[in-house]
């Protein structure tokens, strides 16, 4: 699998994370929906990742063809390639993040935030953008901008450790970490992030693709998208089966799995959907831009969504 292969006719390389939000690619490949949908001439290669920026790098480097990622990396990748490199093909999940308060903390509403220490994962990802926007909407500023709230950007497992030590008051985290903090450490879920969005919906996982792959292989893309939709339906109509398959997949690839309880609660806390919720993407970009995440030259999302007609086979 060297990059010299990358133009090969009958191959699609797909990247995703081992997260509950990425149930579509996991369930879809495990149940054979994708391989059936693509036919046996097309080989599917899956690649596991755990960081969005890395996925984008790999797309740019022609190492993968399509990927499941959050809106942050998707938008960044699109803009960094001057609106040319990638496109959003579909949605994959909505929601699935929560604001969790430490059991010993005095936070009960946003008015208690000043002077507190709040964590969110990596800079520029959905939770980080949401947290910082939420602060500024409530008239607060993070400490590095001279404000009163200390924001830590730190990896989810490290947030867990800080939570144990009582070094942070709250965290804005995705599933399954939100559920873990609640179930294992007695954290209080102050709110679900979707409560803050129009229609209680926002894209949290998207299916994106490399533009030149999409142009060269419109049929494969079409097939993938329809199998993707089929999987969404399958998951939504068989939640129990999905949990089981998800945990089996963890076990198979990692030799480990999460407690069933955590998996089912986490899955219940998000919505599997093929709707990219384009409205939320525009809002997200606007928020990221006002936080200074989209560069110094303004931005333009023209052409970010894939339009099947453009590449009619």
């Amino acid at each position: 699998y060297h990059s010299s292969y990358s133009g090969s006719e009958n191959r699609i390389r797909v990247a995703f994370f081992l997260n509950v939000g990425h149930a579509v690619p996991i369930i879809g490949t495990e149940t054979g929906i994708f391989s059936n949908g693509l036919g046996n001439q097309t080989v599917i290669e899956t690649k596991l990742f755990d960081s969005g920026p890395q996925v984008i790098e790999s797309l740019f480097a022609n190492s993968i063809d399509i990927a499941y990622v959050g809106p942050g990396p998707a938008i960044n990748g699109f803009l960094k390639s001057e609106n040319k490199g990638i496109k959003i093909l579909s949605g994959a999940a909505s929601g699935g993040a929560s604001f969790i308060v430490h059991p010993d903390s005095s936070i009960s509403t946003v008015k208690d935030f000043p002077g507190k220490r709040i964590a969110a994962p990596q800079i520029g990802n959905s939770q980080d953008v949401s947290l910082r926007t939420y602060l500024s909407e409530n008239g607060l500023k993070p400490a590095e901008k001279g404000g009163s709230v200390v924001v830590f950007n730190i990896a989810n497992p490290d947030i867990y450790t800080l939570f144990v030590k009582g070094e942070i008051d709250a965290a804005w985290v995705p599933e399954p970490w939100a559920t873990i903090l609640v179930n294992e450490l007695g954290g209080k879920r102050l709110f679900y992030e979707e409560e803050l969005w129009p229609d209680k919906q926002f894209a949290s996982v998207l299916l994106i693709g490399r533009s030149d792959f999409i142009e060269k292989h419109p049929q494969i893309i079409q097939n993938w998208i329809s199998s993707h939709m089929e999987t969404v339906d399958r998951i939504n109509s068989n939640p129990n089966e999905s949990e089981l398959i998800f945990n089996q997949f963890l076990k198979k690839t990692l030799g480990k799995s999460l407690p069933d309880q955590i998996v089912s609660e986490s899955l219940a806390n998000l919505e599997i959907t093929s709707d990219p919720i384009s409205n939320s993407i525009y809002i997200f970009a606007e928020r990221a831009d006002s936080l200074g995440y989209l560069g110094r030259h303004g931005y333009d999302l023209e052409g970010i969504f894939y339009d099947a007609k453009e590449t009619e086979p």
Partner: protein
Amino acid sequence: MAKYLGKKIAFYVILVAVWQVVAMADIWPNTIFPSPSEVAEDLAYGAADGSLFYGIATSMWRLIVGLSIAIAGGVVLGIFMARVEIVNQTIGSLVLGLQSIPSIAWVPIAILWFGLTDSGIIFVTAIGAIFAVTINTYTGVKNIDPNYIAAARNMGAKGSQLVTYVLIPAAFPYMISGFKQGWAFAWRGVIGAELLFSFLGLGFLLNVGRQLNDVSQVIAIMIVIMGMGILIDGFVFKRIENKVMYRWGLR
């Protein structure tokens, strides 16, 4: 060697005992500070289902290839730096600079040049290890007694003969130190790259432990990494070192 074996074992036994006591004292919950028995259980489990051995084998082969490249390249570069002042002034100064770049920063370049392949991981590994080998070779060659070189040149050694018959053996006591460190940094590189590439191997298992919040798995893998280091140190480097030291009359 053998006469210290008892003490060596005692040392590790005490280490583990202290750990067990601290863990049992419940200063930290065992979700973040597991006891040695939990870690041992995890190790046993990984050994039983074979995933551990597969991980070790995968990482090991990447490490060996990467380290071999690093040693070959580092020795050549180090010798050039020590013997040719202009190389030292140009590439040499770059080397220290490059050495301070964390392997995470090499990953994007690796993906760009090699894709998501073993070669990418090997690249990161070799890059991580090469500078330690280079700098130690450089120091070793720079510190060779000038009389050795004078005598060898006088007897007609030049070019590659000078290198293989004099510079390398004379600098060898220090080069071993470079290889040792190269080994350690290659390990770091492999683990780091596997962690970021999420692509089989021990680094992948380490990451899994982290993502599933399984600290005892993380520690189990760290112990495996260290254990391999200690074994290789004892069986490979210590032996070479003792042999060389003996020859030089350094007991």
